[in-house]
């Protein structure tokens, strides 16, 4: 948990002051967008909230709905 906060604080410190100083607002916006997603995911992982796996969804989509599958074994 602490690790998570430390790492994300670190990322923030490294990136944000530079961006603000150079007035790169667009970059800051994109950065924040991704940062929030990353942080949220990290929090979910640490708090043991199950994160849905995109590949499972894709597998379900391809196999069950489209019916394409290689024979097993």
């Amino acid at each position, binding site marked *: 948990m602490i690790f998570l906060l430390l790492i994300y604080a670190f990322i923030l410190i490294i990136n944000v002051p530079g961006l603000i100083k150079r007035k790169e607002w667009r970059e*800051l916006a994109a950065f924040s967008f991704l940062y929030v*997603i990353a942080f949220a995911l990290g929090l979910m992982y640490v708090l043991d909230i199950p994160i849905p*796996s*995109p*590949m499972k969804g894709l597998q379900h989509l*391809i196999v069950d709905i489209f019916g394409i599958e*290689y024979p097993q074994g």
Partner: protein
Amino acid sequence: MSIEKGKISSQQLLFLIAGFVQGSALLIDFAVGITEHQTWMVIIAGLIITAPVVLSYVLLSKMFPGMNLIQINDMVYGPFLGKAVSLYYIFFFMMTLSFNVRDVGELYMTFLVEDMPFVFLLVVFAATCAYAATKGLEVLARISHLFVVSGLFVIISNFILLIDQMDFSNFLPLFELPFIRIFQGIHIMSVIPFGETVVFLMIMGCLNRTELAAKSTFFGLLIGAVSLLGVAVRNTAVLGKTQTIWTSTSFQSIRLINIGTVLTRMDFLVGIAQTVLVFLKCSIFFYVLSAALGQLFGLTSYLPLVLPIAGIEVIIAATVFQSPVDHAMITQNAGIIYSVPLIFIFPLLSIVIARIRGLPKPEGGKEA
């Protein structure tokens, strides 16, 4: 307009591609369970099928000089559809990168350090790759020489060390397996080591001279394919029938090296070599992913995006599969199917559409 200002030479492109394909050396294990002793054939077939496709990437890149994939998509498919296609690509980059990072983690977890918390390994590895990506494309291109040469050295020396344990009759009978398996094997091979080079569509725009691009790409693929063949042949000759039961065939082959009671227990060599090669592959991926996202958002620099992307990738890598079994099952099925349009269809489609619409137009109105 393009997000990357650096330039690379075609020789550097060659080594980047070779190192990238070499990074998939242990990933052929996905096919070994299916094609057993015919894996070498499947690698060659994969190369033959994918090489023209990759050369079409070069063609596409030459048609739109200096532009990377996202820009090309915008031009060819229009602003909305283009962004949709780009998002599909970005999804692919994200997923594939997380698979590769996870693969390194699984390797370490199974063989080398059992007790470490998985996430920690992933964080350390991802952090290193992300750091490399922040250094920029030119740096990555420069170090790729080193990695490719050392990768070749490791593969060749392992091969030589195991020669006395090789039994080449393990390759017979030559055409034993049912065709559907071979087909799946070829599918896996053309997508995973060779097809993933679609990421280079983000990089080929940065060539300083494009005349030698096609040759460099082809030779890069060739060197990569030879490395993969070296690994596949060594594993089949040494392990024979037992190939299909080990979690990692390369590791087990290396463990059998036993020369003069001095050269034993070399499995760490495989660990190091593989880590190093996958590091190059993942660094390239990180760079490509950040640059793609940066281009999509219209930024001037992709640098600030790298670290948050790393954070996302680590969590995805940690949670996307439950175990190596899951990983293998999904990769052999859905994993290679959803990437087929991206690798085979879209670039060729883009070339055709661009030709029809006469793109790129010299100035002004580019889309209807």
